[in-house]
């Protein structure tokens, strides 16, 4: 294939032009001698290679062995594990934590006024129809909890008094 391509004069001319124009552009932006060009595929390559290589080995064996499904499962497990490790490493960095924190902060800053306005609107609408709002129901629930606590304290006090009285009677 490569031989056929190199023997094609049109292709050769196109390739030469492409290389020359790329070099010209690089000179113009001042990066004529880039020591290590950016390789966007580097991140994916290890996982992809890990997934592909064992498949290539299986296919090279000739016949499909009866444990092929088990091998398929094992390969997928390895592939997922490789991804899990790669993602784990990427997420366990200050840069990732900072990025997540920044997005969360932005979302909170944007969400706060929207949430407040929506709650006010809903409260006003409910008040118009004389229906209790969520805030009112929540405060009633809190009052019930407080009442429950008070009752419990009274019960405990009464139980303590009853125990003391029992002790006195026994004596």
């Amino acid at each position: 294939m490569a031989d056929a391509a190199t023997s094609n004069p049109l292709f050769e001319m196109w390739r030469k032009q492409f290389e020359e124009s790329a070099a010209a552009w690089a000179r113009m932006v001042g990066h004529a001698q880039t020591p290590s060009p950016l390789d966007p595929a580097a991140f994916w390559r290890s996982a992809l290679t890990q997934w592909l290589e064992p498949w290539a080995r299986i296919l090279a064996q000739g016949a499909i062995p009866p444990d092929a499904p088990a091998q398929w499962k094992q390969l997928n497990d390895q592939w997922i594990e490789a991804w899990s490790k790669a993602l784990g490493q990427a997420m366990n960095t200050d840069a990732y934590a900072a990025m997540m924190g920044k997005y969360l902060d932005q979302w909170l800053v944007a969400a706060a006024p929207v949430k407040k306005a929506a709650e006010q609107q809903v409260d006003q609408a409910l008040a118009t129809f004389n229906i209790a709002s969520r805030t009112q129901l929540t405060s009633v629930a809190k009052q019930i909890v407080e009442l429950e606590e008070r009752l419990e304290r009274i019960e405990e006090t009464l139980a303590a008094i009853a125990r003391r009285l029992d002790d006195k009677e026994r004596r």
Partner: protein
Amino acid sequence: MGLERFADVVERFTHGYGSGNGHGPEPAPEVVRQWQEELERTLKRMQNLHRMVTDPTEPKVGQTPRVEIYKRNKSRLFRYQSRRTHRTPLLFVPNLGISRPYIFDLMPGGSFVEHMTREGFDFYLLDWGVFGPEDNDLSFEDCVTKILPRMTQKVLESSGADSLSVLGYCMGAPLSASFLASHPEVPVKNFINMAGPIDFSKIGLFGLWLDPKYFNVDRFVDTLGGVPADLVKAGFKLLKPTMDLSTNLNLWWNLWNDRYVEGFTALNKWANEYVAFPGEFFRQWVGDFYQQNKLFRGEAVFGGRPARLASISCPVFVVGAHEDYIAPPECVRALLDAVSSRDKEYVELPGGHISLIAGRGASLHCWPKVSGWLASRS
């Protein structure tokens, strides 16, 4: 070449192996048997998948018989039926929020509660409950100073015992440790920490994400009021993004196995039932524990009582999970060095945060260790 090989496979499946079909030597009977088994498994997989999709049945969880002893707002105390051959009752304190506690009694034959009751323990479970916006004022301090003292008192009253053992799992362990450390007068005979983080400087990924440099807990709680269940879910999914993929792959692989499917259905129900965090609880949990590590550093104060881990002097058993990324073993183990107990032991078992206590591996590795350690001290 790949196409030719695939055609061979199709040919073999269509016409069978060997016997004069002109496709090379006859394969070994063992190979034929293995392929037949695989085909049968795949058929069974399809049947079970069809059943799961068209006729999903609600799994029965939490089947060990129990009675409700006490209720306070959302929190409930349950006592499980058992032979009660051990004198000292055991109070199990699980995590608050995040998930429901029926994971500890998932299904017959796969239940930690069932194991403990069969071993003769008088087993009590504290179910913190499912929280709503009305609970947003509930704080960590309330749990330590109001709920846990009441629960231990109810355990002692209903069992008639003069002391109890406390087992804290996950967040339940720092909650229990905070309670024991700030209430040294409570008659606790034994304390077990299972996968409960203590030294938050070694907490791992969550610790990094919740670092005060990146996460403003006050802004978060002030804006949202509480932490909705969906956000809790998103946080945990983010911790292990490939989890769903591997879960589904394992499901397909084991879909032929009815017992696996039964277990998966129950576990899947639990795994998708997240529980919200009360706002004030979350503020204190993240601020005092993840961000300031107050309990481990001896700076925590609850209801005016200082909580020093060194004041825990009862026998202590700490169980860490080797692949736990929520509470890494080193942050769990830290309890051992912080308490003043003479009788203390640490074991690190295979598995993750959940598989430490739930599932087949747990029934082999973890449960017998816990019940064995506790039995000789109860």
